[in-house]
């Protein structure tokens, strides 16, 4: 840093090692970015609270909740898609898409995730509206914070914190709806019949929501969240960020001063509106910083002031570092599409799209029947009294449709061999057998395969085919072990 700053005198009193949080009391503001924030908040909270209540008919054998994470049943339902544990790569793929999506958004529009759709931001915003509803706008909040405890303050705090608790409780309550049938769970919850984990989860999420959204707020972004650090590494000179155009604004002077001597002062009238509205309590005029979540409320505030005093808008504005340099050099900014369309964003988009298309393809191509075979290892084979050789297998037949189906299990290869299950007699051994598999479940069979004396060790396969309409088939390779001699 600057080497000319003053050496500290020894006697200078040291600041405390620990610093109390400075209260942030953002002022109410309206403008285009505020309206965008309202919209995002409406959509995200709407999704969060509403989605568990959407119904989706899957027939009599599956739940009718559109989005359901059935942990006990090991199923993940999402509208028309039902994911089994062995298909978890679909979920992994979605997470990869979410990750690349964040990269894409960050390289194009900077910390837009932080500013608009991060849950911490959305809930903090919600709680700050509650603050304004109960305590009034910025100045009233500051006054109340400084006021000694008295009946009025106690009443207001009690009211505000009760609303906090209510929001927190509602947040936790909505979370558990994703893990069980929502209407049933609500009834069980209030009649005390829900699982203990439901109450515990709601209690924990109520506590974290109130703590993080009601009290920690910007401290989470500044001290706890890794994402701002990662994002500052991911932004480049072409990423949009909220910028105070100091070459236009400096030196600051009050409206009166700058009107008196327009040549001496820049556009900034030092009205501090940008600081007043900031939800993280920073001064954007100090330059880009970790506390700036790029919510753009300071842009709204500054634009309004500029409009009032008849100066052009955009003293604080979304801008890329590159455009800032061009503007300072007196050149026109690059068109937005040129900034957005660049190799980095195009590659991110292509990768994102590739993963998405791959997932869609896999989703469309997947079958709803499955077989997996595990051979007994101990003993690997069994010599029978007539000299024939028996191998034992555990065969899992997966019926992934929500209707019961007949399934035909067949031996492929291994001439002369027959099989039977432990529910059949060996005398009834066959090369193909039919089992009915209940809807949406795994049928486990213990299968013995016996081959004629002298059969060599070899590969063969089990094939399962569903009977009835829309037949599907799946095959599993297996090994038949035999004595060496």
């Amino acid at each position, binding site marked *: 840093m600057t080497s000319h700053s003053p050496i500290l005198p020894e006697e200078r009193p040291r600041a405390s090692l620990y610093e109390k*949080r400075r209260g942030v009391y953002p002022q109410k503001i309206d403008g285009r970015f505020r309206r965008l924030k309202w919209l995002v908040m409406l959509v995200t909270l709407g999704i969060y609270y509403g989605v568990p209540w959407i119904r989706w008919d899957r027939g009599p054998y599956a739940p009718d909740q559109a989005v359901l994470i059935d942990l006990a049943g090991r199923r993940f339902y999402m509208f028309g898609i039902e994911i089994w544990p062995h298909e978890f790569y679909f979920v992994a793929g979605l997470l990869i898409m979410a990750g690349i999506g964040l990269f894409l958004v960050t390289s194009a529009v900077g910390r837009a995730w932080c500013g608009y759709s991060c849950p911490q931001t959305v809930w903090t915003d919600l709680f700050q509206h509650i603050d304004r509803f109960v305590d009034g706008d910025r100045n009233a909040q500051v006054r109340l914070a400084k006021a000694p405890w008295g009946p009025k303050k106690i009443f207001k705090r009690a009211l505000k914190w009760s609303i906090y608790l209510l929001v927190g409780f509602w947040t936790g309550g909505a979370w558990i709806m994703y893990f069980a049938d929502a209407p049933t769970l609500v009834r069980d919850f209030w009649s005390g019949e829900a699982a203990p984990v439901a109450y515990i989860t709601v209690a924990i999420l109520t506590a974290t929501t109130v703590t993080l959204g009601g009290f920690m707020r910007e401290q989470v972004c500044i001290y706890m969240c890794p994402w701002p650090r990662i994002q500052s590494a991911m932004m480049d000179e072409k990423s949009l960020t909220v910028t105070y155009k100091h070459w236009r604004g400096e030196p600051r002077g009050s409206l009166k001063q700058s009107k008196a001597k327009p040549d001496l002062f820049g556009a900034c009238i030092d009205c501090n509106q940008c600081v007043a509205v900031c939800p993280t309590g920073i001064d954007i005029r100090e330059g880009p910083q970790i506390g700036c979540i790029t919510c753009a409320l300071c842009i709204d505030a500054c634009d309004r002031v500029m409009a009032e005093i008849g100066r052009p808008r955009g003293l604080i504005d979304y801008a890329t570092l590159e455009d800032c340099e061009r503007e300072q050099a007196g050149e026109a900014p690059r068109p937005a599409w040129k900034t957005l369309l660049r190799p980095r964003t195009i590659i991110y988009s292509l990768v994102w799209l590739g993963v998405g298309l791959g997932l869609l393809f896999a989703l469309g191509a997947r079958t709803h029947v499955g077989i997996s075979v595990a051979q007994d290892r101990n003993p690997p084979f069994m010599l029978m009294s007539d000299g024939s050789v028996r191998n034992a297998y555990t065969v899992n037949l997966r019926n992934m449709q929500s209707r019961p189906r007949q399934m035909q299990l067949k031996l492929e290869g291994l001439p002369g061999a027959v099989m039977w299950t432990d529910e059949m007699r060996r005398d009834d051994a066959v090369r193909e057998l039919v089992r009915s598999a209940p809807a949406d479940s795994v049928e486990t069979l213990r299968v013995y395969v016996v081959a004629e004396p002298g059969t060599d060790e070899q590969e063969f396969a089990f094939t399962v085919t569903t009977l009835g309409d829309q037949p599907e088939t799946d095959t599993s390779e297996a090994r038949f072990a035999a004595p060496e001699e």
Partner: protein
Amino acid sequence: MTNKHVGERRVDEPTGTETVGHEWDGIEELDTPMPRWWLIAFYISILWAAAYVVLYPAWPLVSQATEGVLGWSSRAQLAEEIAKADESKAAVLAALADVPIERLPEDSDLMRQAVAGGRAAFKVNCVQCHGAGAAGGNGYPNLNDDDWLWGGDLQAIEATIIAGIRQPGNEQTRVSQMPGFGGGLLTPEEIGQVADHVLSLSGKSRPNPRGAELFATNCAVCHGDNGRGKREVGAPNLADAIWLYGGKKEDVVKQITSPRHGAMPAWHGRLDPVTIKMLAAYVHSLGGGEDLVEVATGAAAKSDDES
């Protein structure tokens, strides 16, 4: 702060924060104060740790750790969990105690429970001889196959487990004794001829007329004229592919000359009747179990085993 770089501390102009005086290639460390909530969280975790040390076992001493005022121990927790598990099994065990083993297959759910319980008990009590996969070994019968020395239905298996094999002092135990033919009863040459005949029964050797004669005189009384054995006396089937002590000629000669006899403990008294029942069900389920013959032959045939 007693820092020798103290003279180099200064206020960083853009942030207004003091530096600590450390510098690496022009990069200086700011002395930004920690947030106070962090300090509070730190104190809370210290208190938590202190409480934990008092409440739970913590300090390792010479022979054991401090016990903690809650008196919690992982051993006691395990005992509690086992007791709870036992309690949850009580109904099944009671049902198993009531049902005679020949009726067990009628209740497929109970049968499944019995097989599962037997699988666990087998791992504790039986694998030492019969192997983890119940495949046995030389001298120890394989329980997966369809060859049974003393019978392979549920009742026979249960009877074998209860009374064991060749257990002195147990009246119910299954006993058979093959004479050693090497002590002068047969000459080594004759024993070789008998062995050839025995192997020819399963096609492993060419027929030996002299051996067949000797077999009819000396062996058929127990093993039967065709060598198919007699379960009543535990005489193994010699005409099948399965050999308890090996199927090569020298193995057979050795067994005729001076037979080995396996023994199995009587489990009555060591294991409770329900566990024995579950073990029988498990062994029966391994793939070679036989159906019960309706015309019960009194003290039914018994244990599994091969020759």
